[in-house]
């Protein structure tokens, strides 16, 4: 099963998109509210809160605070939720590759790294072991020629990338 067909990948994708959208809409909204206020609501911005400190200055400083807080929230969420999920998905995919490599060493048919990661062209053999379909898509698009060499193409990770 390829990563792209892994249910957890769909979850990861959904969560990461949602997080990005929330952060994006928050800061764009807050920032352009500030910019538009500076351009069109000058009376409000000129209102003095205490001493020489007015709404304009405080809202300017709040922009700084907002950037710091949003960056911190994003990072915290990514670390707590997205990173572990991604790591798990990759680790499982690698395990599948390892098993397949093992079987191959034991004399079974060739392995498709592509099937494990779902993100690369099929590695060698015509049929992968134990009936899993070799490529999730219809047919590999042209240009995706089977790689002739012994090493997987294009820096395919055997030890794996982390998120």
């Amino acid at each position: 099963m390829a990563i792209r067909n892994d249910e957890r990948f769909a979850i990861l994708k959904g969560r990461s998109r949602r997080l990005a959208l929330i952060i994006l809409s928050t800061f764009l909204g807050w920032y352009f509210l500030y910019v538009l206020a500076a351009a069109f609501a000058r009376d409000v911005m000129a209102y003095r809160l205490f001493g020489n400190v007015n709404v304009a200055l405080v809202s300017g400083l709040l922009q700084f605070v907002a950037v710091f807080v949003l960056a911190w929230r994003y990072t915290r969420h990514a670390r707590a939720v997205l990173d572990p999920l991604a790591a798990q998905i990759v680790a499982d995919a690698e395990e599948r590759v390892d098993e397949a490599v093992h079987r191959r060493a034991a004399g079974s048919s060739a392995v498709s790294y592509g099937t494990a990661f779902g993100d690369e062209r099929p590695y060698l053999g015509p049929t992968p072991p134990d009936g899993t379909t070799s490529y999730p898509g219809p047919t590999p698009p042209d240009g995706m020629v089977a790689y002739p060499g012994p090493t997987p193409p294009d820096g395919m990770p055997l030890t794996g990338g982390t998120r």
Partner: protein
Amino acid sequence: MTLAGAASLTGNGRAITFALFIAFVCVTLAITVWARMHTDGAVDFYAGGRKFSGPQNGLALAGDHMSAASFLGIAGIIALSGYDGLLYSVGFLVAWLPVLLLVELMRNTGRFTMADVLARRVRRQSSVRIAAAVSTVTVSVFSLIAQMVGAGALVTLLLGVRPGASFLGMSAGTAEVVTIVVVGALMTSYVTFGGMKGTTWVQIVKTALLMFGAALMTVLVLGRFGFDLSRLLGAAAGASGKGHAFLEPGLRYGRDVAGHSSRTLFDKLDFVSLALALVLGTAGLPHIVTRFYTVPDARAARTSVNWAIGLVGAFYLMTIALGFGATALVGRREILARDPAGNTAAPLLARELGRHVAGRIGGDVMLAFVASVTFATILAVVAGLVMASATSLAHDYFGNVLMLGRPRERQEVAVARFAAILVGAVAIVPAVFARHLNVAFLVALAFAMAASANLPAIVLSLFWRRFNATGMVAGIYGGLAASIVLVVFSPVVSGKVDPVTGQSLSLFPKGTDFHWFPLDNPGLVSIPFGFLCAVAGTFLRRGESDPDRYAELSVRSLTGAGAH
């Protein structure tokens, strides 16, 4: 750039400044030599071996972002226009949030450049690579020219070479040309020999110096006002001659023009346009993007952006104190008399602070220090820009177009070194000729181009299933062309006249007027236009879309599987 009078460094001060310049140049050249000895192969040259840690790369990212234009420029704008300078700096900071959202995805899917990310979506790469290289080089060269012209003017200003006077036997004009050529030659050698390793370390050293200088000055300024912000603001407003309007928006951006409601509206739209380009441009700037690849993985890339956000935020907070402090302690009139653009506000403030602490010599030392930090900033930023162009030319154009993706590594690195020299030369020549022109708008133009040409291609590649090669090419060229054409026919190039002095505020002298686009900043129109071209191009050749490659890219971008 007109230099009315100079920031008067004399005798001692000039000697100290010169010694500090030389010291910085020696240190950076030593770094370059070290980097040359430890650079072997493409990953080392383009990405510093991907061995920088998150915090190190964060310092370098912040350094790439903080040019002399932001150190002297923003402090100057605050000193002259008050609150609007703060408004400007907020845009630069907020721009880092889109970077934070994109950095991991781009780190996971690319190798050295933005084009690597785009190329994953298409079957035939050539046209996309060429488009990306064209936009990378255009954006970088425009910013380079702005930086180098600024460098020439600034250094002569800081060294106090007056028009008519001489320095080491050179007149002010010659000194400017010499500065431009020396800066150009130095940064080209950093890149040619040091590659990304050298450039990054130069950037790290510079950021450390800049942060230290700014922090020291901030503490001294606040100390003068008993660490009471309200008192500082009051003193600034008083010394500005503008009263409380100085602490409110509207002195520089989105000015109200009495009796001209359409001009007032255009002024305000122009400001919104600038804000949009600032916020969306950073994530598409080539010299920022190439930095994503100098760390081992996406997690480190995220850490580095977080560090950059912290540093840049702290820096702009400090410039608020410096700008208002300069008005309060030096006076708006004096700053204006030295340089109408306000670039000398920070150096003058430094001298005033030093003088207050340790008399005349203290003043000279502080001024000399700030002058050399500025010089270091210019060198490092210029080197970063040259690095980005050289990488794109060698990796995208030579390696993946001319050599069909199968260059010999040595060959490609040699081409990159040569490309650095080429880009340096291409930027030095126009900079020498443009040295008397007001080219400050080129920085804003570079941001607008990055936001209109590069950002649509990056964002749609990462998030739109149907996006294809035609869409990428159309978006890049469309956004690039739109921003350039709109600027050529905008008031910054022709037709803007100072209502008070009657002098031309445009690139062309008074009397030439062919502008029809009402805004200085093209972003408000060119960014949507870039996205529109990208979408239209995609629908033009629907058959090209390749959902399979999109699925592959999503897996890579989100999980880091197969990342370099």
